[in-house]
């Protein structure tokens, strides 16, 4: 790798006569890691990079894969979306990695996607997202909306008897889509238009006074009210603080968040948050052998007893496990073979039970609702019976209700229209 850097250095300085040392016959299996190590997303993504490294290390302890050692190739897309495409190309062409674990934000995934499909790479995407996508070259181990948002709403509706809904989110595609889906879902459940309040705020919004007081008055009209929050990252702290200060407690107006996990909580004073909810497929607090083993392994690996684990980490964990299984099953790291072998793979959730990889490249996972405790952990208050299969195309959006993804013959298409029986928009 070093050499090639230097070489392409010469290339640039003295013209493009590059002695591109084509990667020598792989005696190792290369695992690309495409997570931002600098810039705004570094906060979340470095954790995942470490997780992958940890898994690789563990796998190598077990004697590697197909008798070869795994070699992690880490690059830094620096939270800069175009860089994700560039780095993906670098990983696939220069380093010739066999698989990539990476991306956090949707935009970074969207940016890397065309390159993946052009060069037929394989990527595992470990974060909950808005769905509406299924690529041959990507496996989505995070939650689709129907694995997070909808169960959460069900819980609020049935167990807490919520009648009025505030859908508050940061103004970008994940909240937009999720809220569209929820809106449709709630209306289908017979919630009236005026009982739904939708509100969008810019990234890192810090002055929540008016919005919170709106929510307060919205909630003061007798019916039980809840906030479904797709507020992202930094905006959360001031939001919860304002809630606390305006005296809105979790008993009055519970907030269920989809982007607040252990990692985020570790950065804020949980006093005003106690009792508010979050919906994930994993909580660190869940008691299971696999989980406690994972946690202790993580703390050992990072050498920090206070490090917390979170849902995207589990998603990475599951993805990695499944990939190794698939490679063993296929007996090769060839993308097409592995892609087919992936479908139907099963591996143990950290929360107990088995995760299952569906034909649409999304997982079947259990959904948990947790209440925030004053120690920054979640107390599971509800969980789905059995697992929920991830839905690539939401049934609640007019655009996508007829679409399905099925990567097995005869369909083998990411967006197959069940009505017109056509498969549109593939890049190959």
């Amino acid at each position, binding site marked *: 790798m070093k050499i090639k850097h230097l070489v392409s250095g010469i290339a640039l300085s003295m013209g493009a006569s590059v002695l591109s040392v084509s990667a020598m016959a792989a005696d190792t299996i290369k695992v690309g890691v495409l997570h931002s190590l600098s810039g705004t997303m570094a906060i979340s993504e470095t954790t995942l990079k470490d997780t992958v490294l940890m898994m690789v290390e563990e796998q190598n302890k077990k004697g590697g894969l197909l008798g070869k050692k795994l070699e992690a190739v880490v690059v830094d897309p620096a939270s800069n979306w175009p860089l994700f495409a560039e780095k993906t190309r670098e990983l696939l062409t220069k380093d010739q990695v066999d698989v990539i674990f990476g991306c956090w934000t949707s935009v970074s995934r969207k940016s890397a996607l065309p390159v993946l499909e052009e060069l037929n790479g394989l990527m595992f995407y470990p974060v909950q997202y808005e769905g509406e996508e299924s690529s041959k070259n990507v496996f989505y181990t995070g939650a689709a909306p129907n694995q997070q948002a909808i169960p959460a709403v069900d819980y609020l509706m049935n167990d807490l008897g919520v009648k009025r809904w505030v859908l508050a989110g940061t103004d970008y595609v994940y909240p937009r889509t999720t809220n569209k889906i929820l809106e449709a879902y709630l209306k289908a459940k017979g919630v009236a238009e005026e009982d739904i309040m939708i509100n969008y705020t810019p990234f890192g919004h810090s002055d929540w*006074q008016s919005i919170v007081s709106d929510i307060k008055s919205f909630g003061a009209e007798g019916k039980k009210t809840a906030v479904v929050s797709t507020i992202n990252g930094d905006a959360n702290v001031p939001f919860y603080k304002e809630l606390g200060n305006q005296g809105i407690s979790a008993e009055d107006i519970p907030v269920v968040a989809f982007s607040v996990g252990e990692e985020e909580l570790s950065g804020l004073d949980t006093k005003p948050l106690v009792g508010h909810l979050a919906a994930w497929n994993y909580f660190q607090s869940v008691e299971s052998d696999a989980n406690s083993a994972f946690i202790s392994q993580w703390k050992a690996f990072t050498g920090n007893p206070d490090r917390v684990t979170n849902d995207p980490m589990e998603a990475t964990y599951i993805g990695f496990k499944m990939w190794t299984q698939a490679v063993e099953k296929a007996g090769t790291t060839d993308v097409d073979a592995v892609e087919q072998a992936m479908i139907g793979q099963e591996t143990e959730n950290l929360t107990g039970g088995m995760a299952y990889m569906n034909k649409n490249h999304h997982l079947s996972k259990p959904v948990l609702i947790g209440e925030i405790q004053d120690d920054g952990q979640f107390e599971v208050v509800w969980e789905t019976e059995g697992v929920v299969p991830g839905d690539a195309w939401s049934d609640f959006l007019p655009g996508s209700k007829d679409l399905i993804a099925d990567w097995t013959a005869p369909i083998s298409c990411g967006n197959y229209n069940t009505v017109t029986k056509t498969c549109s928009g593939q890049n190959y």
Partner: protein
Amino acid sequence: MRYINAICACLLGLLISTSVLAEPPSEAQQPLLLELTEVKLNKALPVLQQLETTEGADMLALFKTMLNGDLYYEKESKRLIAALKEQSVTRYTDLFSGEELNDLSKNQVSKIKVNNKLRGYLGEAIARMQLNHPDSVVRKDAVRSLFSDLGANTIELIRTARLKEQSRSVQDVMDVALALYRTEHAAEATDRLQAVKVLEGSLEPEVRNQLTRLAENDPSRSVRKAAQTGLDKIDQKAEMYGFINQLFFGLSLGSVLLLAAIGLAITFGVMGVINMAHGEMIMLGAYTTYVVQLMLPNMIEYSLWIAVPLAFMVSGLAGILIERLVIRHLHGRPLETLLATFGISLILQQMVRTVFSPLNRQVATPDWMSGSIEINPLLSLTLNRLYIVAFALLVFMILLIVLKKTSLGLNVRAVSQNRDMAKAMGIRTDRVDALTFGLGSGIAGIAGVALSQLTNVGPNLGQAYIIDSFMVVVFGGVGNLWGTLVAAFTLGVANKFIEPVTGAVLASILVLVFIILFIQKRPKGLFPQKGRAAE
């Protein structure tokens, strides 16, 4: 229920003293208490309900402890324990005997979990028990927290309590509660009408909801009319208070802008230095607060007061350092100071990232700053905002005095107006520059302390405020503190009045565009410096 927090807060004190039950639990209660330690979270509610109703010891302390999530039980003996968390250590006391159990360790006890359902119930139960509490404030809050669901037995309790109630204010709320019940259940229209009359003038949201219901679908016409008039009155009031509320929001946003910008008003306005690292000075202040709380975990309440001077010094010194090392060499090249200081800001950010991880840091809010004072059910001002408004104005005043009255201020003004002349008169301009820059940065540091109470303490804190700060200073007119003050509050209030109409995103865009256009109209801002010196 919305007042439970308040109750908890004011009871926390009592709790410690009264965390011992009056008498040991009765036979009837024992099994329930035992069950409480074993039952699953979602099955716990009935147990508690029984506990409330069964004869025997008063369960107030138990409920309070549980509500605060301090209720534990010893694993083998199954006896209930109250945990008392003091910043670092946790003390356990037997809930019944009240004896200290210092030998107990964390793994010998296990927590009795609560969730929102239980919290909700506990809150009401406590409220019911508190109807005869010695303190009238507590009684009042108790009654109000019962408004949201007035069952027959609750009403009974209130009615009995009402008979021996002395305090006027408490009587009123009790009457409201009873009236609410009557409007709901009284068969006689006249009866309901009376009740409605009682309700008039009360601003409680429950009252409003009830009136709306009555106005829509009460069988009796007269009642509907009465309810409607009542509603209209409330709505009028609501409108007014809504306006006041918005104004307050605007002012508090303005005060934040003021804090963020005022340091810049000095470095930029007086010295003409474009300090792109200004945001990072704020950030340093915020991190200072964090460190202070880290160092003195038992003094959270005072941490801010300690942090303010420290933050001033930290950022101030950083500022002086920057001035000495970089800005000094770029004199009279403002655009280049802009570039250099931007570089510095990058370095500072990355430094913070490496020193204290890229994650946001947790800065606790002292109790005296959290919560809000409720003027009436429709209007309550959050404490932290109030304090920050006051704080901002205080800082502003002090700064004015420093610049107007002290010799430093005199020198600063002299240098800012005519550097060469000042030099000629033996003012050590370079020293003045350093101090001025230090002062500006120091103020930014203080702002950081305040902001740490409102928003994230993280590496990006500074970036979030730098542009706004510049906007404020430029809009207000460079070199004019009063201008900065006016600008900050104008922008704050404007923003808050646009926001409900357009949404937060558009609001901030509109404000930006407005400033851009305004500057085209008046390049020197609201209060330009006149005269030859300015040209």
